[in-house]
């Protein structure tokens, strides 16, 4: 009897919570400083999410930069799961750093709401490079193991994993050079200081005359660059990308989670939102709820495997 009552009370509380939600500002924690790609995405989503939640709802972005996003991810994971604290979530970076250092969260610390952006990695060389195709590059890497340098944005991120997976799939050996950030890596490629790089496709779009994209590390060709083959087409089954989505702390009330997922789906369906994201150069790959959780789990396995085979520190 007591049990039923409690259940009833809880159910009632949940419905009232849902009916009133949100009754105070919703905060989205961004683990990077204002003006970065993730921050801009969060602010764009926040703007549209306010409308979808309706009733004068307010969605505020809070930047908590530091430690490669870890400070922000930790803050989100440890917040109360009441729907008033959400966070941006970057894959594979957020989970990769649970392997290479002590983190206070793991893949199970979050309620996965929706992923918005998926930017596939590539194999890219300077336009002036002598390598015209992926095969030529891999040939050279095999002929003199380690002679081909790959510029990365960092170790323990999608650039790095893409490079490792490419090496494993082709049997070639590369020298990895982790720069501070994608722009520095890109500049080093353009200046001929490293032979190639694994930057994401989004990083290449502003430099069509300076860079040559040899392959996209995705299942299918990108609608942004239909002329570039996938690595899979060329015989190397490698997929890696950078994902950005919105999560909440684990244990979020199912009704609130559903409401947020529905609202985020409506945001994604808004053509104005799509236009704004396209203008910012963000390729949208909307994945909601359990599918997003499955993606995170898969990325977690990739990070775990690479960490086990070739730990980077």
């Amino acid at each position, binding site marked *: 009897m007591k049990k039923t009552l409690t259940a009833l009370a809880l159910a009632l509380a949940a419905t009232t919570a849902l009916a009133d939600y949100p009754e105070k500002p919703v905060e989205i924690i961004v683990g990077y*400083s*204002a*003006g*970065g*790609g993730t*921050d*801009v995405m969060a*602010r764009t989503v926040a*703007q549209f999410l306010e409308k979808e939640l309706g009733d004068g709802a307010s969605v505020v*972005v809070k*930047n*908590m*930069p*530091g*430690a*490669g996003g*870890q*400070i922000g991810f*930790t803050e989100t994971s440890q917040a109360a799961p009441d729907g008033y604290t959400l966070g941006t979530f970057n894959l594979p970076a957020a989970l990769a750093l649970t392997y*290479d*250092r*002590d983190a206070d969260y793991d893949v199970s610390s979050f309620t996965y709401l929706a992923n918005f952006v998926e930017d596939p990695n590539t194999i890219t060389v300077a336009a002036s490079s002598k390598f015209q195709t992926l095969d030529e590059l891999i040939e050279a890497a095999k002929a003199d193991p*380690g*002679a081909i*340098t790959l510029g990365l944005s*960092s*170790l*323990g991120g999608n650039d790095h994993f893409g490079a490792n997976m490419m090496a494993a799939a082709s049997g070639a050996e590369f*020298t*990895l*050079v*982790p*720069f*501070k950030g994608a*722009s*520095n890596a*890109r*500049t*080093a490629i*353009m*200046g*001929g*200081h*490293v032979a190639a790089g694994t930057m994401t496709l989004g990083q290449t*779009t*502003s*430099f*069509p*005359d*300076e860079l040559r994209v040899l392959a996209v590390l995705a299942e299918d060709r990108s609608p942004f660059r239909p002329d570039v083959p996938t690595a899979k087409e060329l015989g190397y089954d490698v997929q890696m990308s950078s994902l950005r989505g919105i999560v909440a702390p684990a244990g979020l009330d199912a009704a609130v989670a559903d409401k947020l997922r529905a609202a985020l789906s409506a945001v994604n369906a808004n053509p104005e939102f799509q236009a*704004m994201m396209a*203008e*910012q*150069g963000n390729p949208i790959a909307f994945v909601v709820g359990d599918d997003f959780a499955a993606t995170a789990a898969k990325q977690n396995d990739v990070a775990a495997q690479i960490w086990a085979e070739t730990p*980077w*520190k």
Partner: protein
Amino acid sequence: MYSDLLHALPNVFALTNFAAVVIGVIAGIVVGAMPGLSATMAISVLVPFTFGLEPLVALGLMAGIYNGAMYGGAIPAVLLRIPGTPAAVATTFDGYPMAQKGQGGFALQVAVVSSSIGGIASAFALMLLAPPLSKVTLLFGPSEVFWVAVFGLASIIFLLGGNPVKGLISACFGVFVSVIGSDPIYGNDRFTFGQLEMLDGINIVILLVGLYALPPVIDLLETPLKTDGVNSSNLGTEPIWKALPRMKYWKTWIRGSLIGIWIGILPGAGGSMAAFMSYNEARRTSKHPETWGEGEPEGVAAAEVANNADTASALIPALTLGIPGTAVAAVMLGGLLVHGLQPGPMLFRDNPDIVFGFMWQFLFGAILLVLLGGSLATNSFARLLNLPRPLLGSVIIVLMLIGVYSIHGRMFDVYLMLGFGAIGWVMDRLKFPLPPVVLGLILGGFAEENLRLALRIGRGDPMILFQNTTSLILVALTIAVVVGPTLKKRFIDGRKEV
């Protein structure tokens, strides 16, 4: 491309766009003048608010703030020996002695005119030479940048002051601080004591505020009974048009502008290195180097022209390649991204009105500096220093706390700053020079990161560092800077003996 430049001009004069620059310059001077508040901080606070603004209004504000703050930093540097921004450290060398001699007003006028000239030169470089100069940036890979850092570190030799041993200890302390945080290649924690807040290393502003601002404030508070102003009301101010003919620093201005522009297009080093190098060069070539450090106006001119000359030029690699030349340019890049403006050659083709308008705003910001900075700083702002000492000291402490807290919004940084303040106070009392610490922190990390990248590219072979012309030129320059003065001295002494 030049027609695009002219085409962008009318829009810049739209009322809101122009007002943004004016407000930005004034705000920048104020922010720069407050110890602890820097241009980087002001612009990063501004970025989220610009989300709803027109692009040119947002960018105009930022251009104004950047220009204003680079000069504003000189105000407390001259009057209190507290650099308002990292780039104003070299301004203290001669600016403060001038203020002590009752020439504070003239020092500020030299600073504002020099800042303005540097800013104008830099804006022209950005407007006319951005694409070719971005090619120069491409020449600088890890090994070349490593040598730039070594060259900068070598210039510390000039900053050692009377006691080289103490100077070297200071420099080593700076380099040590640069080691704190996760290492640049593998991300291993170094001296972080498990604190997440220290993983990214020590922010230069935290070190600067603690080291430079706290000791003078303690001095101010140590004499609470004396209630007079710092340099009393005697700033020695005369109208700026009367002061102008006394400024004959063309060589220094041209040299400082070129150095500033050059440092600006190289990623990472920034305004403080430009100011140090310009100061060194100007002193080295001066006919009377013995007066430097004792209140030589040309020293103020050299430092201030260079730290403004790297403002617009730091945006050249930022706009064309996405790699900011300074910390301020990095946050400005964020401001561009907010408006969907992606750096790269496409930016110039797709949004010429905005990009070129932004460049014009830089130019006007630099010109406005003389008008606004001249009156604002010398007539009103500097009067703040007539406040009773205990009051002034308390105000500065509050500003320091707010400024440091607002960098990341956490108390941890405030405690860190107070810790550095204690170290700075001890160093100050024991007469250890502080500039080498700042330069050590900036260039130490820069040198390490690029050395390790270069060695990785070379697969561990150090010969990679000597494999191209740019590197070899930089090596030769470094040797010249280190050995040159000794040889020159020996040569002159040798002649005397004959």
